[in-house]
């Protein structure tokens, strides 16, 4: 077995002190919970609550009870019910960054609002990106009413893609149809519970607050057996202490409070100990996701999650650049590398630019290669047929090369990751002869090729019809009689 390379940022003493301080904060300062139903649930579970002040406090035993019932691992399955994700140990899976407001238009190189056609292209593209295991509801089509912008993304993803979906709701009302869409795919509540199809992101508001919507989402997901990922977002120096340790204390407290809500609603609900913490740039008043400090908080939070024995998530392999430029590559690659070395089970971010607000199809193609390289890194260095070494060297010295050696042919694909044409490995002459293409041009060619290679998913026609009917009904509910036309038949 190969040594699994692993990054560690926290020593045991510091980690335990951070956890201890977070528990102290939850016990003495508590969190705001702006949802009376959830407050009652928490009170029944043993938390101290003040309904009038919309506040809850979490004594140690309540935290321990919740932590004890969280599954130590879980799996995800695609629309066909095939296993795609195993969130356990140090296994890692990539997911595109989610819920961007904008898309980078390759043709104009302008950041603009996306529409349905963009989303369909995204879903088609993602079907062909082998190193990104899940879809996310990556951006918000602007050609439908805001009231369905969450369910509409899931609808398109389930219609045009097979991979499981990391998603979330923007309202309490949208949950039902988003659950019903999953039932249309799976066939029954039990089947959905047995084989989860989605993960819902649920975000506390820093500092230490759960809104009515997100706390209700946590409860609704628990009732339906839908896994959640908690996306705590402390901003160092702004809505969190400026120190990395202080931000980690806050992240731990906010995430633990979410765990209690989830387990109080239904013990055993699967979840990811996740987050999107960020450094706060006090010069630009921005939240750089590509900052090394952001990535350090992510990795350290992952260590804390693993200390609790839980599967983990982070928004870490993304960039703040506005174009597919060198900054986009360096920040994404650095984050992805650190995330993989840390063993963050669900790594969110590919495709994303501009502080989680802009998706790029061309960047997804590049990031798919970054993911491939880092996944290779995670496999480490492993002796295959290397010992004793003398026979292969005898062969080398005898034949002058090992190009057609059985040893080469048996091991080449396992030992070496071969990226697609977006990563330039041609010699200068070939690169020139093939048009001296820039990274962006090569990535765009791949987008075109992969979108062109897309074929309708294997999901049964009846299920697709049901999805369409559910979406049409939901749109009508919010005053939209006609959904945008889709040029690509599902």
């Amino acid at each position: 077995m190969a040594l699994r390379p692993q990054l560690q940022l926290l020593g045991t003493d510091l980690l335990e002190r951070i956890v201890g301080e977070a528990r102290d904060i939850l016990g003495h300062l508590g969190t705001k919970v702006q949802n009376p139903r959830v407050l009652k649930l928490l009170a029944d579970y043993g938390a101290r609550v003040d309904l009038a002040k919309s506040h809850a406090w979490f004594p140690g035993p309540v935290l321990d009870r919740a932590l004890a019932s969280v599954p130590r691992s879980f799996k995800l399955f695609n629309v066909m019910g095939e296993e795609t994700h195993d969130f356990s140990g140090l296994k890692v899976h990539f997911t595109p960054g989610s819920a961007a407001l904008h898309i980078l238009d390759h043709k104009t190189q302008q950041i603009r609002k996306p529409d349905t056609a963009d989303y369909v292209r995204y879903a088609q593209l993602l079907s062909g990106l082998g190193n990104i295991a899940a879809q996310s509801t990556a951006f918000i089509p602007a050609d439908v009413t805001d009231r369905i912008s969450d369910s509409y993304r899931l609808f398109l993803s389930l219609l045009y893609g097979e991979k499981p979906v990391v998603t979330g709701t923007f309202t309490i009302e949208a949950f039902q149809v988003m659950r019903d869409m999953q039932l249309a795919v799976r066939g029954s509540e039990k089947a959905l519970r047995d084989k989860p199809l989605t993960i819902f992101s649920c975000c506390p508001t820093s500092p230490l607050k759960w809104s009515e919507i997100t706390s209700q989402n946590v409860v609704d997901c628990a009732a339906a057996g839908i896994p959640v990922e908690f996306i705590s977002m402390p901003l160092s120096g702004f809505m969190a202490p400026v120190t990395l340790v202080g931000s980690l204390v806050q992240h731990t407290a906010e995430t633990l409070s979410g765990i209690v809500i989830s387990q109080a609603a239904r013990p055993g609900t699967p979840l990811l100990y996740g987050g999107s913490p960020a450094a706060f740039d006090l010069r630009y008043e921005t939240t750089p996701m590509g900052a090394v400090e952001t990535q350090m908080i992510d990795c350290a939070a992952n260590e804390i999650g693993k200390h609790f024995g839980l599967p983990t998530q982070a928004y870490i392999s993304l960039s703040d650049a506005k174009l597919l430029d060198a900054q986009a590559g360096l920040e994404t690659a650095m984050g992805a590398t650190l995330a993989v070395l840390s063993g963050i089970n669900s790594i969110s971010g590919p495709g994303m630019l501009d502080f989680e607000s802009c998706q790029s199809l061309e960047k997804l193609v590049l990031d798919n290669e970054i993911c491939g390289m880092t996944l290779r890194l995670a496999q480490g260095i492993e002796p295959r047929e290397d010992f004793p070494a003398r026979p292969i060297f005898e062969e080398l010295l005898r034949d002058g090369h090992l190009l057609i050696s059985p040893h080469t042919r048996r091991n080449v694909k396992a030992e070496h990751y071969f990226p697609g044409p977006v990563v330039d490995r041609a010699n200068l002459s070939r690169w020139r002869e093939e048009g001296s293409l820039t990274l962006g041009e090569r990535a765009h060619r791949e987008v075109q090729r992969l979108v062109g290679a897309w074929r309708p998913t294997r999901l049964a026609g009846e299920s697709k019809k049901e999805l369409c009917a559910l979406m049409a009904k939901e749109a009508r509910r919010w005053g939209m009689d006609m959904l945008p036309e889709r040029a690509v038949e599902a």
Partner: protein
Amino acid sequence: MEIVKQIAQSLEAGDDALVPQLTREALAQGIAATAILDDGLIAGMNAVGEKFRVHDIFLPDVLLAARAMYAGMDVLKPLLLSAGIPSRGRVVIGSVHGDLHDIGKNLVGIMLKGAGFDVIDLGNDVTAARFVEAARSREALVIGMSALLTTTMPVMKEVVDLLHKEGLGGRIKTIIGGAPVSQDYAAEIGADAYGYDCAQAVERVKQLAASAS
């Protein structure tokens, strides 16, 4: 002609046992050696070359296919010779004088043989005089020169100049390759072609041979 297709497919799979066996069976069925060569062996190698160009397969697969091609050619060669059917042409290759690097040159040689050329490999450290003499005496259509060092590149120009001096310029074509050389350099020294990798080198040699023969 189903069996000829099978030959091409077996060649693509790099099966150097099945290709000669099928070649013998095809001959026994009365299929002409030229048809087996063109529609089986060379068609298979062309498919391999295209797959390699677009990265569907890698170098080892090409070399294995070439090995299978040789195995099939061994069966056909006596028949082709007795029928007076020439090979695709003869190519003299070598690493230029002062250069002891020959891996790239060897790859090109393997690929050229796979494409049906008769290859005379002069090895490495080959002087201009040896290139020209070998090409003239063996009636080669093309001289292929390889260099890895900037210090040895000028020998390529010596070969081109010598060919012209001896009145062979234009009749015997030249192609160069190797890390330090380029299309621009080929044009600068008057070489007829440049190949940036072994697959492209084979394509260029095919064009040169067609124009020379």
